[in-house]
Structures are given as structure tokens and as C-alpha cells.
């Protein structure tokens, strides 16, 4: 290597040494990484709207109004430390223009919104402020949305929202009362505005806590409930008459309840309402058939009938409650049907419900007497209501009073209800002797048949043609009712016949044998 080249290289190296010293010195001075610190950059923006939520939807929608002067504060998440506070402007808008990004909680200074309202909702009260994006948080100021249980505890005069299931429709009782319930209880809302609310609708009520008949109600002041959705009607609470009468100490005020079975003790009409007093053995309860509800309770709404009622408990204001069914569908009346033998032994004047098989036509004998039987016996029903459609073999229910005719009990003043079709039971074969005494009375009004009875005498009486027959055991008079077109010419002494008929007391300790139609008698 030449000397010149060596010198050039030497100079180069000299420069490199100097450069190296500079670099090393630079590296040795100061903290080069001091500014290499990762930070969560800058600030974020939070804007929002304060408004009065008039319908408790917690969204700014139709009917809601922006609120000015609402104090909005931003707290560090999980703490009560206020980071910044602003006041909403005239249009309800508020803004935090420069907030360090992070998690915050948006709160409202309640001192700025008064006592009558609350902070009903804050969208994303826990809000993350992120760089580059503006977080939007709306603040709903409104009345509290309460459960019914909470509403009942509110003092009178407080404005509230309540969500619940409607238990009746607006016109059910002819007034503007709607019962509502939720999981915490039931309550009446009064002075509801007319609207289409059906039982089972989930509705929202906005009103004022008030009292009626000593119980808390929501006075809607003609506001129409808002139907939220169609829901399922809650199952009624099963109650006794005693519990219902006291609404279980008030707990069941306005509640939807069901009385499974009680005996009707009395009925009365008060101010166009039918008030039925019922009792299941643990106390009396008044069931009110609202006069505005167009009830048709039917013919069994009678004392003594059993009744099952579903309805709403309404306070009387005197510490008791009445049960108000909403329609006929809420009521089921079950009469106290007894057997014929029981009816026969019932007290005179007692109203009895008897089910049996009709043994003859109404007016078959020219009167309104119908014989019925069941497997315990037979009885005559007299003065049966004018029901021409009863045929022998029909299954019927007779309602009437026990009286005595010709020494035998009858059901008098009978109302008839058809229960369907059946068959006439076969007559009992009796001897003429047994027929004459109705087998010691046990076959009174029964359908019986005699055989090989020989006519011994005949006579025409006012009631008809009488033939005395005897099968050898003793005589019995066969009465061919005048209202039945019998051909009595063949019935002469000595003639023998087989016959089916009803045993009717003569009033003298014997019974007449009364065929019901010409077909009941066959000559031999």
C-alpha cells in the first residue's frame, strides 16, 4: 500500500474516530428514551340531551320535552369523584368537550331538577370516552316508573308511572276504573281516559297516587293508559269468602281472585246491581253483579245454589271488600241436585234440585204433572212450568218446592231444564195388589206394569174411565184419563189385560194405576 493511500486511510480513520466519539458521547448523555412513553392519547367528547320523559319510554320521542338547567356531572368510574360538571342549555343539550379518555359515570345533580321528578334514565350511565369518537348520553327526567307494590307505598299526590297487566277493560263496570296487577300486587286506576284496553294487556299508567274507599289508587285524570303489548292475564288468586271479604287484610285489594265454591245465601238487587251473598263456611262475601256489566246469571242464581266466581276485589270503604265478576264468564253456578228419595224426604217448602227421567209428557194427563224417576225412586212434579218439549225418557232437572198432594210429596211449581235424552226406565212388574198400595207407598209415582189382570168392574168417573182389575192378588183401579183418547169399549168385566202405567195416589191410601197412552194397555 502506498504511503499516500495510507495517509488517506489514516485521515478517514481519524474522522471515524471523531465520529465515533461524538456518537458515543451522544449516547452517554441524557436519557434518549425519556419521551418514548406510551400514553392513552388526548381527550374525548361527551354530548347529550336532557329531556322530560313524558311517557316513560326512556327515549326522547313524541311528547317528550327538552329540559334546560339540568346539572350533569361526570364521575370517574367506580368513584364519587366529580371530574367535570355542566348545565344543560335551553334546548336541553349539554357537552363535555375535553374529557380524558376513560370510563366514567354520568350523573345528574338532583338539586337542579326539583322534587317531583327523578332521573329516570341515563343512556349508558357507565360510559367510555374514547379518542376520536363522541359519546352520546341522553338523560331522561321523569316520574318514577314503579311497581304496584312501590306505588302503594308512595304518599298521596305523588306522580308516578306504573306498568302492569290490565285486569279488566275500560267499560267493564261502567266507570273508568281499570284494575292492574304485577308481580308485586294489584291496584285500581281510576278516572282512566277512554281507550281500548283489554284484560291481559300490558299497560303503562301515568297518574297520581290517590285514595278511593280507603285504598290507594292511581288517579289517571282522564289519561289514557298506554298499551305496551299483549300479555297474558295472570292467574287469579284462589280465595275463600272470608279472605276475599277482607282482601286478606288489604293485601288483595283490587286483586284478581277466584272463589271456587260457595253457597248462595241470598240475593238482592241494590242500585241496579245484583248483590249475591255467598258463603263457603268461613264468612259471607258479597258478589256484585254490576248492573253495567250486562250480566245474565241464569236461573240457578238462587239461594242454595253453589257458585264459583272469578273477579276483582273492590273495597266497600268500610273495611270489607266485594267481589265483582267482570262478565258471565266469570261466574259458574252449580245447583244442589238431590236424589228423588231425598227430595221425597225433604222438608215441606224446601227448594230442591232433582235430576231424573221424565216418565210422561207434560200435560199427558191434561195437567202439568210430570212423573220423574231416578234410581232411588219416583216423584211427581206438579205445576211444572209450561214446557211442552219434555218427552218420556228425557233427562231433566226439576227445580221446585216440596209440597204434599194426595198424601204424597211432590215437587211443586217446577222449573224444568233439559239435560239431554235418555230412555224411559223399564216399569217394575207389580201385582195388582202391590199397585193398589204402591208397594206400601214406595212406588208412589212410579212406572209399573201389571199382567193378567181381569177387569172386575168398570165405572166412568169425572177424571176418566175406571176399571177395577185384579190379577188374583187384589184389586186395583186403572184410571183411563179422560184427556187421553182411550178406546174403553173393550174394557168390560171379564176382560183380561196387561198394562203399564203410573201410580198416582188417590188421596185415600190407595193408588190409581194410570196408563199414559193407549199403547200402555193390551187386552188378552
Amino acid at each position, binding site marked *: 500500500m502506498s504511503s499516500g493511500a495510507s495517509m488517506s486511510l489514516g485521515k478517514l480513520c481519524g474522522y471515524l474516530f471523531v465520529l465515533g466519539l461524538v456518537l458515543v458521547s451522544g449516547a452517554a448523555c441524557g436519557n434518549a*428514551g425519556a419521551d418514548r412513553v406510551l400514553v*392513552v392519547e388526548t381527550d374525548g367528547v361527551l354530548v347529550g340531551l336532557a329531556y322530560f320523559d313524558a311517557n316513560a319510554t326512556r327515549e326522547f320521542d313524541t311528547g317528550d320535552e327538552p329540559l334546560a338547567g339540568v346539572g350533569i356531572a361526570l364521575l370517574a*368510574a*367506580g*368513584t364519587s369523584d366529580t371530574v367535570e360538571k355542566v348545565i344543560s342549555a335551553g334546548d336541553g343539550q349539554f357537552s363535555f368537550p375535553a374529557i380524558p379518555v376513560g*370510563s366514567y359515570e354520568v350523573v345528574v345533580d338532583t338539586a337542579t331538577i326539583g322534587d317531583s321528578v327523578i332521573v329516570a334514565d341515563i343512556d349508558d350511565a357507565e360510559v367510555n370516552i374514547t379518542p376520536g369518537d363522541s359519546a352520546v348520553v341522553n338523560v331522561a327526567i321523569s316520574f318514577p316508573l314503579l311497581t304496584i307494590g312501590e306505588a302503594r307505598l308512595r304518599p298521596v299526590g305523588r306522580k308516578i308511572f306504573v306498568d302492569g297487566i290490565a285486569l279488566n277493560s275500560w267499560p267493564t263496570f261502567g266507570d273508568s276504573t281499570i284494575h292492574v296487577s304485577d308481580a308485586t300486587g294489584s291496584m285500581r286506576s281510576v278516572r282512566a281516559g277512554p281507550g281500548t284496553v283489554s284484560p291481559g294487556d300490558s299497560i303503562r299508567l301515568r297518574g297520581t297516587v290517590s285514595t278511593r274507599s280507603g285504598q290507594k289508587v292511581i288517579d289517571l285524570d282522564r289519561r289514557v293508559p298506554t298499551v305496551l303489548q299483549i300479555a297474558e292475564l295472570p292467574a287469579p288468586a284462589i280465595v275463600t269468602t272470608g279472605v276475599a271479604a277482607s282482601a286478606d287484610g288489604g293485601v288483595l285489594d283490587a286483586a284478581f281472585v277466584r272463589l271456587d265454591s260457595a253457597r248462595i245465601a241470598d240475593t238482592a238487587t241494590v242500585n241496579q246491581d245484583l248483590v249475591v251473598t255467598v258463603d263457603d263456611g268461613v264468612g259471607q262475601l258479597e258478589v256484585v253483579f254490576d248492573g253495567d256489566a250486562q250480566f245474565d246469571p241464569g236461573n240457578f242464581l238462587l239461594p242454595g245454589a253453589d257458585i264459583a266466581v272469578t273477579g276483582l276485589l273492590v273495597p266497600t270503604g268500610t273495611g270489607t271488600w266485594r267481589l265483582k265478576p267482570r262478565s258471565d264468564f266469570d261466574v259458574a253456578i252449580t245447583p244442589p241436585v238431590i236424589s228423588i228419595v231425598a227430595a221425597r224426604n225433604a222438608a215441606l217448602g224446601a227448594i230442591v234440585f232433582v235430576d231424573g227421567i221424565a216418565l210422561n209428557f207434560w200435560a199427558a194427563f191434561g195437567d202439568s204433572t210430570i212423573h220423574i224417576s231416578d234410581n232411588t225412586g219416583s216423584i211427581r212434579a206438579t205445576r211444572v212450568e209450561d214446557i211442552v218439549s219434555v218427552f218420556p225418557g228425557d233427562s231433566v232437572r226439576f227445580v221446585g218446592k216440596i209440597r204434599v198432594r194426595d198424601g204424597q210429596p211432590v215437587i211443586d211449581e217446577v222449573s224444568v231444564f233439559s239435560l239431554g235424552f235418555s230412555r224411559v226406565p223399564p216399569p217394575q212388574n207389580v201385582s195388582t195388589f202391590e199397585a193398589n198400595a204402591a208397594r206400601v207407598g214406595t212406588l208412589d209415582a212410579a212406572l209399573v206394569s201389571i199382567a193378567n189382570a181381569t177387569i172386575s168392574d168398570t165405572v166412568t168417573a169425572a177424571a176418566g174411565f175406571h176399571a177395577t182389575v185384579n190379577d188374583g192378588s187384589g184389586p186395583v183401579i186403572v184410571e183411563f184419563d179422560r184427556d187421553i183418547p182411550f178406546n174403553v169399549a173393550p174394557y168390560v168385566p171379564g176382560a183380561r189385560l196387561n198394562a203399564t202405567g203410573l201410580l198416582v195416589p188417590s188421596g185415600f191410601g190407595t193408588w190409581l194405576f194410570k196408563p199414559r197412552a193407549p199403547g200402555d194397555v193390551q187386552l188378552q
Partner: protein
Amino acid sequence: MRTLLTALAIGLFAASVQAQSITTGEVTGIVTDDFGRPLNGVYVILTEVVRGVTREAETARDGQFSFGLLSPGEYQLYAERLGDQPVRVDGIYVGQGRRTNVPVSLTPATPPVERITTVQFRRPAVGIGGTGVFTDLELGRLPSPTREAAELGRFSSASSGTLATEGLPGHFSGVVVDGMTFRSALHEGLPWPDLPTAPFALSSFRAAELLTNGVDVEFAGFAGASLAGLSRGGTRDLEVGVFGDWTGGALTSSKHFDAGSLAHNSLRGGFFASGPVVRDTAHFFVGIEGSRLKVPMPPALQGTPTDLAFADIAASSFGVDVSDYLSPRLVSTDLLSAQGRLDWKFGPSYSLTLRANIGFFEAQDPELGTLRIPALELGQKGTDVSGFAALTSSFSRVVGLEQRIGIEYSQREYDPGSIGATALSVGPTVLGTDPVLPGEFSRFAFRASETLHLNAGKHRLKLGGTATISSIDRTYAAGREGGFVFSDVSSYAALDGLYTQTVGQAPLASYMASEFGGYLQDTWTPIPGIEFTGGLRVDFELLPRDEVVLNEAWLDLTGLANADSTSSSSVIKISPRFGVVADRGAWQVRADAAVHHGSVVPATLGELVAQSGRTERRQGFGVLSAWPDAPDAVTAPVIGPSLTLLGPDFQPPRTARTSVTFTADLGGGVRFDLSGAYRHTDFLPRRHDLNLATVNSAQDQFGRPIYGEIMQRGGLLVADPESNRRFTEFDVVSALDPDGYSDYWGVTTRLERRIGRFLSFFASYTYSETQDNWLSGLGGEPGLQLTPFPDSLDGRDWAEGRSDFDAPHRFTLGAEFDMGVWRLAGFFRGQSGVPFTPGFRPGVDANGDGSFRNDPAYVDDQVSGIPNLYGEWDCLRLQVGQFAERNSCRGPALRTIDLRLSLSPVTVGRYPVELVAEGLNILDPDVADLDNALYLVDPTGSLTIDPAAGVVTVPLVANPDFGRPVVRRSTGRVFRIGIKVNYE
């Protein structure tokens, strides 16, 4: 007379300066006649004494000769020319990275020449190397507790046995063997690396140097020091050696604990053999060492009444027997290391070196280091493998080439014990599996380098490149085993306390890390004895950003993406180097300035990969459902996911260091060194919590900012986890920012003397100061690494202060008396105590940042009992009325003495038998973790909150046990006896 003159001439002009290679040396010289005129045509032969390998050269017209790329060791030089009397120079020592100048003067002689002039090369004391070069004394004749290569660090007054050097942690330093870097798979959560050089037994090194400021551009990868070692190679003749020693029984004792009946027989043994494969051409070395060390240590629990009550409750209420924690513990370590090396010189210009090292170890109940809980039933395993091949080519006097390739595999596995970390705050009672365990770490690396050497007159150029491809697997997240803290024994009995645990998917981080570098260096010798070295190295480190799973939730919240929180997926590292040496034979002045970059710590990248939101932290504070099993999710619910991001322009630590060293040969075998060094390291990863509340919610009675709302239960103080987070969807979100720095300056003086064979000694003293703003140096739980004043304290960064590694005074002394039949060697090391910060007990989060044990105490002499501590702790008195400065107090100084007595009474045949007795840790200092809690939270008091003033008054009482030992770590005195047989 001429011989004498020749010898003098050689001695006067002999010098050693920077050579070209970091693993080889160089011998240069000039052959002159009696009048100093250069002689050409002189035949020069250089012979390596140990192996007998020779190199030959012929002088040119300028009389100069040069042998480069020489294996370090002792050489013999022979010069002859027709008409001159030949000269043989003995005792030429070639050091790694050194150039030795050997001038030779020939005297005319009339043929036939009948004799050869033999002269002894005067070994220039100042030319051997810097203050970091280890002498034969340190390399093998002083007592050795572990026989691991890293142990060399303790002989340096600027370093330690864990290679924590000049104020930086041990894992910042590394091992370079034969020019090839080896990195073990470290658990950076532990305060010091465990067996970082497991495959390299101390005996496998024939030379070593602790390079704190390697100027050569080939040194790279460590922001700390490099332990540069040369492995042992073959020998000219067969040599075999065996050794073995034993300790146990009464040979171990301590004034701090009684090992009692604890069986602790420890055995060590080894075998090595070296010799020729092909004489003068190929040589081998094989060695194997094994040890089974059982080291008794003080009980994990000190047996205080609280400890005993705890043990009773554990047994009676929970059926857990912790009595073993009250007995001395036994650290058992089995270690096996082996090395094989083959050197083959083929042809005059090429030599090939093959080396393989392997190390296995398995430990039971290992000592985890300061501030870590001494647990029982822990298991630890490790495997290290290092393979290496180097081809050295000397094409001519001008051109040489070194090519190296290497592979390494390292694996560490830490298994937990059966009891999770459990502490009683007012005990203090601490036991169980430390929260930083367990973990599995492994790395595989392929390394290659090629360096071209050009000898251009006064310039020596070096040009080369390196490539490293690493595959790293880590299964680790701090706190997976969970940890309990109870206020006292009664709250423990009621299971009323604090529990924290990291849960979620297995935090597996598996990634590739690659690094490529190129370098250029020139060494310029304008005049003899003056040498400049300048170089530049540029490295590219590729970061495994693609391995990170993007956490979209955090991205949405903050705009920060964990997956690309580095601005680039690569880091460019520029490392200028500069050095100047003025060598006048009897003295030498060396000035160096260099920049070194470390690599990105696997713990950092591993955490980045693993902590991408897949792990969560759960915490229970109150009555817990179970112990020691983890409480259920009801009593310890999940707080939120943890996340880690890298700071902007993240890059690995960079160290700039300048040093000036004056070395003098004072004659009589005395060498004196005086050096001063300044080191500045920046880009240290500091942990910041991005998800801490943006502002403090209150302050305590001392003005300490409190984040969130703190809750007290007995002596525990915990922040409501819902209250102190910026984004409540997340728990701690760590930013590892490269804004940490460390400054060190130190002055070291060292004296060496060798009086014949009778006495060899060295003494070294270093005074230094280390300051940094880096709370992560000792590892540990992430919470420990967070500054307690994230918004600064009085406008300054509280973390800036005395470093955890600051040890102002360090003194080492090693000496050997050789009386022929017996030799006595001893080593003393003393250093300042460990600094610490007055603070609080576990379970006390004074500032509500969700982290425990990172809060300093406020020194308030109004608190009863505090003034009573002033007498013993002046650091408190000096800080009255302020928050304690970082590391403002210091534990007692540490001093150790090790001795070795060797007797060579007999020789059996050709086998010299040496009996060895070692006494280790003779002074038996009380090594302990000190109770740094200045206050205890008064369990009988309660928080007083003044909402208007925003002040939370914490009920505090002085801790009378401040500064007392909490966990003792003394290993006691150990005496070993052994035998050593060498066949040569």
C-alpha cells in the same frame, strides 16, 4: 552479553495492544541486527507450547514478521538466518484479543552454529489486559463454591457472582465462549439468573475476562458485561485429571440456624482428559463434572409466635401441615456439565475448532433470591446445550478469515409447591409458592458470524457480519398460582383476607426473534505504542410483532393496538466503538468509549405475546371460600383481563460507556490499575399502568395520592378494583416503555503482585454510585415495577434515585501462599449492604393503584414509635416529613471469606495426589431480606374519610421490627474435603 542485551531489548520493547480477533491473539515483531537494522529473510517459527502446533514465517525487507489468529496461550518463537546465531524466545504469552510485539535481534555468527541463544520473554504486566482479565489464581486456585463459570464475577469488584455488573442486573450480562454468545433461558421474574452458565464449568475455561466495555465490534448483544471465556483445548501430551470432594454432617454449621439432623451430604466430582489426536495437528479435550449439592438454609418461617399460631391453625382448621416451614430447609441441586473440544489444524493456514457443552441440573426447593418467598416442594429443571464450530483461515500476512457457527438450546422449568403464596401482614409470616412462579422457558438459537481481517500496514481492518435466529417459548404469567394475604392469625383462621390470581388461557408465548448485524473496525497504529481503534456496528433486531393477538376491545377504547404498539417490527441498533491505547511498556493508558445494545428481553416480548387479553386477574377481598386451594369465583371474582403493550419506538437497552484505565508495572511483579468508568444505559423497559384512573380520587393524611376507593380489613388495605381503573373493562394494562435509564460511575483500583511461586495476590476496590429510574431491575410481580407516584411527586419522578443495584463499596482480595507441599488460598469479598425503601407490609396498597409493596412510607415522627427507630436507622431521621426516597436505607454490609488448603504429600507413580480442604463462607454473614415496613396498618383502627377535603386517614402504627430480618438466606459455613489427581 549480547544475549543479555537481546533480552533487555526484548523486554524494553515488548508490548501488547489490541489485536484483530476477540478469540485469538497475534504475535508481531521485527528482526534486526546488532545495529537495529531490519533483517530480511529471517526464518521465524512460532510454537504453541501446550499443543506443539507451529506456524512459520519469513521476514520481509523491513524485517517484520506477524502471526495472526493465534490461539491464546504460551508460545515459543525461534528465529534464524544463515550467518546469524539463532535465537529462541521463551515465555511469550498471547492473550485473547491482544497483539504481542516480540522484537528479536540476531547476532552474526560464523557457521557452523553450535548453540542457540535462549532468552526469556519479559511478560509485560501492563500488557496482559484490562482490569477484567482473570488470572490463573482466579481461574482455578481460589476456593470455588459452585464451580460454575459465572462465579468468576465475584472476583471482580465491579461485578458479582451473578454477573450483575456496574449497576445492571445479571441477565443484562452474558457469556461469550470462544467468541460465540450463549444465553440461557432465563426466568427474568427472579432477581438473579440461576446457573446462567450451567454448561460451562469453571474448569472448562483456560482464560476468561469480564469485559465491561468491549471496544471490539464483535462484542454485542449485552448491555451489561460480557464474560468472555476461552474453552480448554487439547494438549501436546495426554493429560488426565480427576477430582472429588465432599461435605456434610458436622462440616456445615451456622450461627443463624441449626441444621440439626438434616442430611446434607454433598458430593462433587469430575474428570477431564486432553491430548493429541494427531500430534502437532489435532487435539482434543473432554471433561465432565457432576455435583449433588445439598445446602441447608434457615427455616422459611422464623418460628415467631405468629408463625407457630399460623402452623397450628393450618393443621387444625385446614388439615395442612406446614411444620416443615419451621424447620431448616434444604436446597438440593444436581448438576452435570460436560465439554468436548477438538482442534484440528489442517495445512499451514487453516484450523478448525469443534466444541460442545452440555449442562443438566435439577433442583429441589431452590433458593429464588432476595424478596422471593422461600418455598418448599418447588421443583426446578434445566438443560443447556451449546455447540460451536469455528474455521480460522490465514490466507496471508494480510488477509485472514474467521467463520463461526453455533447452536444453543436452553430450557428452564419451575414447578410450584402445593401451597400458594400466603402471608400474614402483621406477622410477618410468609410462605408458599412465590407468585412469580411457575413457568417454563426455552430457547433455541442458531448463530453464525464471519469476520474478514485485513492487515494493511499500520491499519488493521476488520469487516464482518453476524446472524442470530432464535426460537423462544415461554409459558409464564406472574401470579398464576395465586397468593393469599391475611391480616393476622385470627383473620387467617376466618379466611378473611386478600386473594389474587392470574387466570385464563395458558400464557404461552412462542415466537421467533432474529438479529442480523454488520461491522467494520480499524485499528490504527500511527507510531509504536500508540493505537487507535474505531469501529461501527449496526444490528437489526426483528421483533415478533405478528405473534401478538390484537386486542380489539382495547383498540376501540383507546386507539392503541397492542399488536403494533411498536412503531416498527424491527429495531436498528448502531454501536460506535472507540479506543485509544498509549503503551509505553512500563505503563499503559487506555481510553475506551463504546455503545452496546442488548437484545429485547424475552420476558418483555413474552409478556407482550402472552398478555394480549387472554389472561385475567381475579381478586377476592373479604371472607374467602378456601385455603390453600384457590377460592371460588364467588369470593374471588374476575376483575378483568390484563394487557401489555410496548412503548413507542421500543428498543432494547443501550449502554454507552466510557472508561480510562491507567496500568503500571511497578516492578517486582507488581501491577497497579486505576480506572474510572461512566456508564449510561437507556431504553430500559419501565412499566406504566395505562389503565390507572386518570386522576386520584383522594389523598391520604400525608398527601399521597390515592386512586380509587381503598378498603381496610384488619391490617390490609386494598383498592376497590372497580374504582381505580380508567377503563373498567380491563385490569392493569401495562405499557413497557423504553424510558428507563441507569447511570453508573465508578473508580476501581487493583493491585496484583506475584512473588515467585510463594505469593500471588490481587486486591481490588471499587467505589461507585448507581442511579436509575428503573423499578423493574429485580423482576418480581408487575405491581412492584410500578411507580407509586405515577403523576410525579412534587414535580419529579420519585423513581429517579438510588438504584436497586447500587453498592458504593466493593472490595475483593484473593491470595495464595504456595509453600510447595502445601498451598493456602483465600478470597475475601465485602460490599455495601442492599438498599431498600421504607414502605409497607404485603397486603397494603397505600395508594390504591392495585399494586402492593411498591408504596414508600412517609416518615412521620408524630407516629408513636417512629423516633425510636432513628437511632438505628439514620436514613429515617434524615427524611422526616417527607416520603421516603427510593432505596434510601441500606442493609448491613456483606462480607464473605473462603479458604482453600491444598496438600500434595505424595505422588503415586506419575500421579500427584493433592488433598484439598475448603472452607466457604467462613464469616457466615446474616444474609436476609429485611422488613422494610415502616408502618403497619392498625387493625384496630379504621379509615377516616373526609369527603370535603378529599383526605383518607389511614390508621397506622410504627413497625418496631423495621429493618429486622424477615427471611434469612444464610448458607452457613461449609467445609469441604476432597482429593485431586492430575496425570501429566
